[in-house]
């Protein structure tokens, strides 16, 4: 009975994750509180991962949490997995394989991203011209392009076409947006979701998170860029910088388009109602989600501390 409850607690984020993910990705409050929505995504991801590990551990032992504690002693004493049936051994293997698989994909995604960032930095250093007044790198090219290569020495890059297109105030807004990405290390925020999508591409919640998080990061950078600035400057910059027509029907065009539309919409129309409770509710839910898996994983440790031997 004990382990059933524990499994249920551990698995809750996974079971809720799918439905919550879809609601969260399309929620109107998320675009008003992108930071809270991002924290909720991170909580869902973390709680889901920990829950999957916890569920495996719980299923492997008969009485929770003492069973886990006994199993720990048994392994340390060199008696291995003696007395465990095949189902329990499988559950234990699951608890080991899931984190290992996740770790593998995290390392892979990180290594590939860092290598690509290095390559991009080198290309920019060699091909672009540095302008000290704005600390930007300018590429020769008429199509309007602005981007940032994140890293400890981030580079904000614009094409000559973009510089011609933007007014001084719009340029300032674009630079503030890109610097917000660089300073917030949004690349590091996104990486775990890319790794998760690589590890479990068949889970709908994971795919939803993978496409929703970049949109939230754009909104967070937009909000940061608009501090002490007219929101219309950034809206104008986005509309001017859009390169129409050349769209080579992307992998998920729907969401990418929706993201730009949403970004412009929220910049054009000042927040009508500031629903403070929405942010608080999101942070509260994030904490609640984390509780179950953390308790399930922490219980055996507490058990060892309280009843040693």
């Amino acid at each position, binding site marked *: 009975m004990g382990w059933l409850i524990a499994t249920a607690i551990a698995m809750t984020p996974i079971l809720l994750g799918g439905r919550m993910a879809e609601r969260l990705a399309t929620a109107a409050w998320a675009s008003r509180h992108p930071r809270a929505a991002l924290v909720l995504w991170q909580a869902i991801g973390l709680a889901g991962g920990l829950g999957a590990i916890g569920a495996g551990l719980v299923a492997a032992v008969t009485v929770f949490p003492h069973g886990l504690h006994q199993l720990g002693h048994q392994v340390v004493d060199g008696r291995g997995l003696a007395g465990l049936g095949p189902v329990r051994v499988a559950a234990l293997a699951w608890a080991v394989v899931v984190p290992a698989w996740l770790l593998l994909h995290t390392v892979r995604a990180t290594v590939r991203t860092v290598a690509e960032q290095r390559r991009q930095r080198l*290309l*920019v250093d*060699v091909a672009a011209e*540095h302008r000290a007044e704005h600390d930007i790198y300018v590429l020769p090219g008429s199509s309007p392009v602005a981007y940032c*290569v994140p890293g400890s020495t981030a580079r904000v890059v614009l094409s000559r076409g973009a510089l011609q297109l933007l007014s001084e105030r719009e340029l300032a807004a*674009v630079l503030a947006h890109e610097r917000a990405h*660089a300073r917030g290390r*949004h690349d590091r925020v996104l990486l775990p979701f890319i790794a998760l999508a690589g590890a479990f591409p068949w889970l709908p919640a994971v795919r939803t998170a993978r496409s929703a998080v970049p949109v939230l990061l754009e909104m967070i950078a937009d909000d940061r860029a608009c501090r002490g600035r007219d929101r219309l400057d950034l809206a104008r910059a986005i509309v001017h910088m*859009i390169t129409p027509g050349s769209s080579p029907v992307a992998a998920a065009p729907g969401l990418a388009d929706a993201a730009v539309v949403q970004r412009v919409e929220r910049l054009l129309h000042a927040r009508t109602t500031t629903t403070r409770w929405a942010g608080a509710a999101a942070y509260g839910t994030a904490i609640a989600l984390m509780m179950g898996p953390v308790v399930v994983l922490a219980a055996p440790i507490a058990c060892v501390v309280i009843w040693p031997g």
Partner: protein
Amino acid sequence: MAAGPHWAAVTFYAVDKPVERGARVRLGSLERSIMEALWEHPEGVLAQDVAAALTPRPAVTTVLTVLVRLVDKGLVSRERQGRAHLYTASMSKDALAAEAMRAALADAGDLEAAVNRFVGTVPPEVAEALRAALADRESS
């Protein structure tokens, strides 16, 4: 590395635009100066000639270190000539700029975290709708 001070000196002075006194030392400009030297000599140059072409003159070992890195990244190719290597730029300046631009425009997929784009490409009708929404707001 003994070449350290040269590196700093080179990165400071080799900037192609005049920089205010006390400006932050810019990273990566040695790479750029070396590439410029290679683009001026499409027939190929020796590492010591590259070093000699730069002011102030960096240590040849420093230039070699950067050249090896550029070869690894595919920006430079080398050819054995006697006991030394002859270095040539494997891409023209324009091609390199185009490559950097492509990175900013292409759909990055799994490498999305490597570059933050300001806006992506959208279908013409979406661009038109956004332009209309902005015009609407500006006139109100």
